């Protein structure tokens, strides 16, 4: 269970939110919505421990994440605005090295399956990532979700530049994750096509 306790966040001179309380149970997803610049990404980065909150704290299974440190990192998968893939490596290499760094090494075949699951065909697996199209790069980043066993997913606009087919596939994967007892925080401008009882919406009004 992920819990935010009276979070406050300011960037520069702008106060983005104060006294934000929210609780995400296992099996549910928190959809963070709001205008551009309202602080959605900032909130997600606070959840990921990349950004320390100005006030308040984030609890994971009742414990402060800043005490858990690496233990908490071992529980989450974060996919941000940036894809975090190396232009010179192939999708396969990118995926495998990302997984092995995250402490969840995967086999060659496993990685191939994940890439295919998200709709990247075989020939593309062996191109350097820099020649891929924008959507293909995003898919490489998202392929990690098929291999991740971490319970907490933090996704920042995962559907950006994906076509409709890929969007559906990712949503489906998200659903499976929830059904297995995982939880997720998703920032998005689109509607997430998940059953209403699993989605909790948080609107930021920066």
């Amino acid at each position, binding site marked *: 269970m992920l819990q935010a306790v009276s979070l406050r966040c300011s960037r520069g001179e702008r106060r983005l939110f104060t006294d934000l309380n929210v609780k995400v149970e296992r099996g549910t997803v928190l959809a963070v919505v709001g205008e551009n610049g309202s602080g959605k990404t900032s909130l997600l980065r606070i959840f990921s421990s990349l950004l320390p909150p100005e006030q308040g704290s984030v609890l994971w299974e009742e414990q402060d994440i800043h005490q858990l440190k690496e233990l908490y990192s071992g529980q989450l998968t974060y996919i941000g605005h940036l894809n975090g893939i190396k232009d010179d490596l192939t999708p396969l290499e990118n995926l495998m090295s990302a997984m092995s760094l995250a402490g969840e090494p995967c086999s060659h075949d496993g990685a191939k399956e994940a890439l295919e699951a998200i709709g990247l065909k075989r020939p593309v697996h062996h191109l*350097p990532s820099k020649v891929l199209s924008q959507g293909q790069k995003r898919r490489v980043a998202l392929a990690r979700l098929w291999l991740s066993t971490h319970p907490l997913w933090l996704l920042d606009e995962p559907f950006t530049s994906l076509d409709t087919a890929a969007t559906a596939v990712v949503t489906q994967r998200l659903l499976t994750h929830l059904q297995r007892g995982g939880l997720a925080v998703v920032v998005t401008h689109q509607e997430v096509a998940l059953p209403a009882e699993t989605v909790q919406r948080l609107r930021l009004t920066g």
Partner: protein
Amino acid sequence: MSVNWSKYSAPQTFYPLAGRLIPWFACVAVVLMGIGLYMGFFIAPTDFQQGEAYRIIFVHVPAAWMSMFLYVVMAVWAGVGMGLNARLSFMMAQAIAPTGAMFTFLALLTGAMWGKPTWGAWWVWDARLTSELILLFQYAGVMLLRTSIDDVRRADRASAVFALVGVVNVPIIYFSVQWWNTLHQGASVSMATGSKMASTMLMAMLLMTVAFWLYSIAVILARVRCVMVERESSPVWDEKPTAVQETVEAR
């Protein structure tokens, strides 16, 4: 009689033509090399100053000349490629670079071998020597730039631009001996003044030069054939043409 050059520059004609020419160039190169070596070792007299060490000249000078000559030829092909957007020209430029680099390396190595007995040092920072080293870097630059770029078309054109820009250095290398007082020998063969060397020495040197030249042609043609095939072949996965099924639904 007019020759239809565009016919020969088409890859389909050039490929077999090159294949037929290679053995000839190779054979003549071997024969001339044999004669040149025989003259160099058994007929040319001992040098009264340097003793037998001077015999290095029979590889050193041809290699040094080829190193500069090939660079210019490479740049010309690159320029033609840029001007006419001709893929064959780019392939020629690509095929020349390794051989040119090899001769540059050989000129440096044989020069060092010659320098130790005559100057007492493997290397001095003399203008000619340094500029030859620079030429090696230019070859390396052309080749590294090409291997660093995945897209063939882009690699062709980028390395062509660099090769062309680098040509300005060749005259500098050639004239460096005059601009800077140096240890290295100035030109001893020139059209105007004739030669200061014994005629058998000169003969052997020129034979070796022609032999190196023919060797280069043979090797470069062989390499360009490989390059052509490597570029033409496309992997099996894209066999069926992905014709665009275009649905323009104007409403």
